[in-house]
């Protein structure tokens, strides 16, 4: 199946003017969230949702929130020198879905990359070391391929949580070169 070129996709922040009734992914929970909860959640500053359009069609969405990872140390010797924190700042890709008519055209991958790139930009302004995601089970392999780690304790949840440490990756990014591109 042919992918849609990235330059033909637009990402727009959700607001009340958009018609969401046409959107149907294969996951009813995600459809329900977009149509009934996303705007309310955004209005009270819990989350931000972004819509992805191809021409005039709403083809996907994703939702971002701030998050934390808390580490419960088993023994005091489990601590790491230089890291006195037990909680670490994250941004969470809380919801991602693609309309079923547009599945298999690279839109999910585009949205994930857009989110990762956006989190990188946020991390240049606000401290943020990890990206977390509530992964659809069918997407776990995709996330693992990109370095996300599955939390084994919660692996049986409907949307198992995963995380990615951006720090070692960002060490290898030439910020000046990217900022000037």
């Amino acid at each position, binding site marked *: 199946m042919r992918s849609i070129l*990235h330059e033909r*996709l*637009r990402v727009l*922040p959700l607001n009340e003017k958009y018609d969401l009734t046409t959107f149907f992914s294969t996951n009813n*929970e*995600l459809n*329900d*969230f977009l149509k*009934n*909860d996303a705007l309310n*959640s955004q209005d009270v500053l819990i*989350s931000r949702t*972004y819509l992805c359009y191809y021409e005039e069609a709403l083809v996907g969405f994703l*939702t971002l*929130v701030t*998050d*934390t*990872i*808390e*580490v*419960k*140390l*088993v023994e005091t010797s*489990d601590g*790491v020198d230089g*890291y006195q924190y037990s909680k670490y700042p994250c941004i*969470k890709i*809380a*919801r991602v879905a693609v309309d079923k008519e547009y599945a298999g055209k690279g839109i999910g991958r*585009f949205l*994930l*990359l*857009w*989110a*990762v*790139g*956006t989190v*990188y*930009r946020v991390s240049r302004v606000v401290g943020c070391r990890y990206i*977390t995601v*509530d992964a659809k089970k069918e997407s776990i392999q995709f996330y693992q*391929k*990109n*370095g996300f*780690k599955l*939390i*084994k*304790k919660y692996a049986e949840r*409907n949307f198992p*949580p995963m*995380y990615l*440490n*951006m*720090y*070692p*990756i*960002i060490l290898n*990014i030439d910020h000046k070169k*990217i900022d000037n*591109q």
Partner: protein
Amino acid sequence: MAHPIELGLVLEGEDAREFLEDLRNPKATKEQIEMFKEAIKIAKEHPVEF
């Protein structure tokens, strides 16, 4: 109402140990670095407009 977004990820036991090992010895693969470069490019080409 859809299941609410769960905030705050708590790691214990083996998950905590794996996390701490990653803190001690963080590693990035060539694929991850390339993925990030592509992601940054996409985000830059599709900035959020309010």
